[in-house]
């Protein structure tokens, strides 16, 4: 089943007036893949992602996410995806437990299921001592891990991560990527945007957006060979310079 595409995008375009934020991008993501979606600030990453998660309507092109069309079935898409933004949006004035219950609830999980999931989560992340603490009092690293687990609570087919590791230390980032691998091994597709080029090396495949277009798309290894450099960082710099 690994060769089925869970995201299929063809010539997807988004214009704001005269400005073309996303310019006819085409790619697909396979089930269970960790797909890195790279680009400088303002390259159009977030706009592209917003179209895929159903909160922004494309101007033209086609896209299917989890088998559903972004134009006509955005509500079905929402049931099948998880989303974590750069702000790890949990509610600071709710406890860990209440956050889990709330987000489980809005995805329509039964009370029993939420209870089960919560116990699992508490064990896996070792949350025994903080499950009744307000989220606002926890360090950033904890918030990030819990936020990711909450995004996976309803067992989505695809999880979208928008710069999930902003502002956390390298060790926590490493731990976070272990969680991403685990999710991927369980068959969840991971679609991740990031600034950190070392993280790009962890992805199965990487696309690099420059000024609204996808300029490169392949495994990190092949990209490095193609551009004859040693790191993803250099790939990125070379691409950006070529454009200028």
């Amino acid at each position, binding site marked *: 089943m690994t060769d089925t595409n869970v995201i299929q995008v063809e010539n997807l375009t988004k214009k704001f007036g005269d400005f073309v934020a996303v310019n006819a991008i085409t790619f697909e993501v396979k089930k269970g893949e960790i797909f890195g979606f790279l680009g400088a600030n303002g390259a159009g990453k977030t706009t592209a992602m917003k179209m895929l998660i159903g909160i922004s309507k494309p101007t033209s092109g086609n896209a299917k996410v989890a088998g559903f069309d972004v134009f006509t079935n955005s509500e079905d898409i929402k049931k099948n995806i998880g989303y974590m933004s750069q702000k790890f949006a949990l*509610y600071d*004035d*709710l406890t860990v437990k209440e956050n889990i219950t709330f987000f489980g609830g809005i995805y329509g999980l039964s009370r029993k299921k939420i209870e089960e999931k919560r116990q699992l989560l508490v064990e896996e992340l070792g949350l025994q001592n903080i499950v009744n603490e307000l989220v606002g009092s926890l360090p950033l690293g904890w918030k990030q891990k819990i936020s990711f687990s909450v995004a996976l609570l309803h067992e989505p087919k695809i999880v979208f991560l928008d710069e999930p590791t902003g502002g956390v230390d390298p060790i926590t980032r490493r731990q976070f990527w272990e969680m991403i691998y685990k999710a991927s091994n369980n068959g969840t597709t991971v679609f991740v945007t990031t600034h950190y080029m070392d993280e790009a090396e962890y992805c199965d495949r990487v696309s690099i957006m420059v000024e609204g277009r996808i300029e490169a798309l392949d495994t990190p290894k092949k990209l490095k060979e193609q551009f004859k450099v040693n790191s993803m960082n250099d790939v990125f710099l070379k691409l950006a310079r070529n454009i200028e």
Partner: protein
Amino acid sequence: MKRFAGFIRKEFYHIFRDTRSLFILFGMPIAQVLLFGFAITNEINNVDVAFFDKSKDATTQEIINKISASKYFTNKQMITNDAEIEPVFQKGSVKAVLVFEKDFSEKLTKENKTYVQIITDATDPNTSNTINSYLNSILQNYQLEINKDIKAPFQINSETRNVYNPELKSVFTFVPGVMTVILMLVSAMMTSISITREKELGTMEILLVSPLKPFQVILGKVFPYIFLSVINAIVIVLMSIFIFKMPVEGSLFLLGFESVLFIINALSLGILISTISSTQQTAMMISLMGLMLPVILLSGFIFPIASMASPLQVISHIIPAKWFIIIIKAIMLKGVGLSFIWKETLIILSMTLFFIIVSIKKYKIRLE
């Protein structure tokens, strides 16, 4: 439905864990009602007056006694020359000075005419007017008394009766006003802040990506405030009945219905504000400047609309609070039914629909 219940539970956590919003929700209404009910009033009571009696005869003494005996005035001091008048006002406590001319009694009996000069401190024109008319009416009464044996050839006697508020208690107009301000504040400001807070924190994005529909998110945010505002309205009405002895002549049910309608109106305004502001700060500023000031100044709560400049009168028409104040006064004091206030009700209803439609339009644009 279950999703919705979970959402509302979350909203209550937010409200009850934030001391600031708790204070605005419950502390302020009670404080405001008590303040306006007891402390701030436009009635006059025990106003200090001074007398400059150049005549010192039986008549002037009788008038002075009458004025001092009334509950409105207190005889602060007697003045003996013109130079003392100014300093008396400057000291501040004395608000009016009565000057009786020389040979007051004699002129009255011989020339049938005599003068008393009333000098008032007009730094506060409203109070000065009120003092003036109270003093005049005491003088008038006295005049009637001394003339009671003489039949004047032509007489027009006026007899005034103040219906709906016979004692002219100012609390009767403040309670509807305070209720309006509170409901507006709680409903519009609190909802707009709580919605923009989700935007600011980034949780709104998460909610929009979830299977919850945008209108469910908004309803979920708004619903707790309907509930809390209704409680507030009930508390204010109970306080006005039991503490200030304000009557509720009309139907409590109608009062409840109109209040809920006004609450929904304010909530839809709150939603509208939240669609045009992206931070809590902006939402609060717009609510305070755009809503609170007009509600307090132009709704007829403190300043009578009839005496405003005509452009302001026109503006007052588009303020929902103005119509709601008319409605509650009519129900509580006059005891009228819906047939007398359907016009005002309809105005609030259509304003509400207008706000909701505009919010939906704005909301969609934002999602694009």
